[in-house]
């Protein structure tokens, strides 16, 4: 499945290749693959969007956009507080940016001429590996090295060697499952839309795109909820010991 995306070609031709030429690397082909171009577009779009929204924030006269964003962020905050049991403002920068980034990435694929960057496993794996390192870092910081390692060993000393191996494997499966879940959903959706469009253009794929609209939001939500669960599991052990 290699498509030429107009946006990606233009971006590579006018921005990436001249910059690479400055450093002495000349190429007639596209240097950045399409999903990285889409990631950069989302990054730029979200940054500009957040600066514009921040300059328009007001306490006395909140607009509709501000209210919608406040609803989403307060929802994420209260959910984080329920799941982790600590101050949600500590984890909100990670969780909020993951949510908006994944949501935009999933929804971008529904526009003609663009692709979802999350339909490439490298993009989803980058987020999942970052989450993996972050929650382990939080766990080490909250509990200390020995206590966090002791939590891997399970409750009883007798089965500790067995439990340790099982826990290590299950923790290593987490980034894999996070990345494959997001990638599989979005890639399957794009594949179905593409094949339906090949069979009968425009009309037949519309219901699938409506489902895709729904599934994109659900997948972004599930990703951050699982991140919250992992963070909660890493943090909570300091309380009841």
């Amino acid at each position, binding site marked *: 499945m290699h498509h030429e995306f107009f946006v990606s070609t233009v971006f590579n031709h006018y921005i990436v290749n001249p910059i690479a030429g400055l450093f002495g690397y000349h190429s007639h082909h596209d240097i950045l693959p399409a999903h990285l171009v889409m990631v950069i577009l989302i990054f730029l779009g979200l940054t500009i969007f957040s600066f514009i929204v921040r300059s328009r924030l007001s306490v006395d006269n909140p607009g509709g956009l501000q209210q919608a964003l406040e609803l989403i962020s307060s929802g994420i905050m209260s959910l984080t507080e329920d799941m982790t049991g600590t101050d949600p403002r500590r984890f909100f920068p990670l969780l909020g940016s993951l949510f908006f980034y994944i949501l935009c990435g999933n929804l971008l694929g529904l526009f003609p001429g663009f692709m979802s960057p999350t339909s490439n496993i490298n993009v989803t794996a980058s987020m999942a590996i970052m989450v993996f390192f972050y929650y382990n870092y939080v766990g080490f910081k909250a509990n200390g090295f020995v206590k966090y390692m002791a939590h891997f060993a399970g409750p009883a000393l007798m089965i500790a060697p067995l439990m340790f191996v099982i826990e290590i494997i299950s923790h290593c499966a987490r980034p894999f499952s996070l990345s*494959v*879940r997001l*990638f*599989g*959903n979005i890639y*399957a959706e794009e594949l179905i839309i593409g094949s339906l469009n090949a069979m009968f253009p425009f009309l037949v794929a519309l219901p699938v795109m409506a489902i895709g609209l729904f599934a994109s939001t659900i*997948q972004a939500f*599930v990703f951050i*909820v*699982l991140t919250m669960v992992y963070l909660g599991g890493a943090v909570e052990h300091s309380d009841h010991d």
Partner: protein
Amino acid sequence: MIRKIGFFALAIMILSLIAMPVYAQGEGTSNIEVHYLAIAMGIAAAGCGIAQSIAVGKGCEGASRNPGATDTIRFFIILGLAFIEFLALLTFVVVLMLQ
């Protein structure tokens, strides 16, 4: 009645499994693997569908018995559906890798 239909469906499935190499040989190139991958994906989708319908059904049951807990139940249904879906997606990824 349902049992009869199910029996016939099973028989047709097994017959088509046996007959598949015959079809594939007619095309000249052997792309038998692609058919088996489709069957694997179908089995995974069937199991995923059964499991998800059980989960959603039980969730609706719980929500109708205790409407106050609807938000919690909805949250756990969505989380559980994501976990169930993951098993079908694993098959999907294996199919993509073998394709």
